[in-house]
């Protein structure tokens, strides 16, 4: 899996799909360069959105997930995007921890076990991003709000901190993770 991130991506790209398309092309280039034989026939697949707005790679050769957020809390810029690409199902979510009535939200949407695991606002944002990443990775969860998916027993998560104050969570069976920042 490769995770691509970009600060203030809107200065260079029209939208998140344009950036994701660029990331897919870079991912394919890296694959070509790292393979034993140079596969010149490998083409860059297109990134599209389904009827629910979920992005996908047209030929199904790769899985991808996109997350973006904007806030005056982002140092130096006001928007950031992250794209995860893998040959296994993947979900990604980013959030900037900020003041919020997290206990009220947790009480409404989180399981008892999840609520007990939260002892700070940072814990809340870590758990929130895990839930969103899980939701995005599982394409058959259209009928659920991400926050209601219980992730307390699941181990396929990784949480990282990028650009000093942004929480990034990944969900995937793919454990080989590289960051392209």
């Amino acid at each position, binding site marked *: 899996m490769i995770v691509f991130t970009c600060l203030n991506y809107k200065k260079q790209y029209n*939208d998140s799909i344009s950036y994701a398309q660029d990331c897919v092309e870079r991912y394919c280039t890296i694959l070509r360069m790292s393979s034993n034989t140079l596969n010149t026939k490998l083409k860059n697949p297109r990134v599209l959105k389904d009827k629910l*707005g979920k992005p996908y790679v047209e030929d199904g050769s790769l899985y991808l997930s996109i*997350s*973006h*957020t*904007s806030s005056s809390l982002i140092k130096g810029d006001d*928007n950031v995007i992250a794209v995860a690409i893998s040959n296994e199902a993947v979900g990604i*979510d980013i*959030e900037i921890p900020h003041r*919020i009535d997290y206990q*009220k*939200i947790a009480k*409404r*949407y989180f399981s008892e076990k999840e609520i007990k695991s939260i002892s700070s606002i940072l814990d809340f944002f870590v758990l*929130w991003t895990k839930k*969103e990443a899980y939701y995005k990775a599982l394409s058959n969860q*259209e*009928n*659920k*709000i*991400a*926050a*209601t998916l219980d992730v307390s027993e699941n181990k396929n998560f990784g949480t990282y901190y990028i650009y000093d104050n942004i929480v990034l969570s990944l969900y995937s069976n793919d454990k080989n993770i590289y960051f392209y920042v």
Partner: protein
Amino acid sequence: MKNKDKILNILADALDVNVSDLSDDKRLREDLKADSLKEIKAFMAIEDSFDIEIEEEDALAIKTVGDVIEILQKYF
């Protein structure tokens, strides 16, 4: 529509945009850059303001500003 102005003001505050940006066709995620947490905050603020509880299926069905106004009418 009943309570429309109040709903729009709450929505604008929760999504950190101007009320003038909230035309009916604006999509919460793509056009107004709302992430999942901002959406939840917006819905909870509306619930608190009107003392209602939005059903999960209605929350899932809301994609645009117009959807917010139309779908929430049944709660008033």
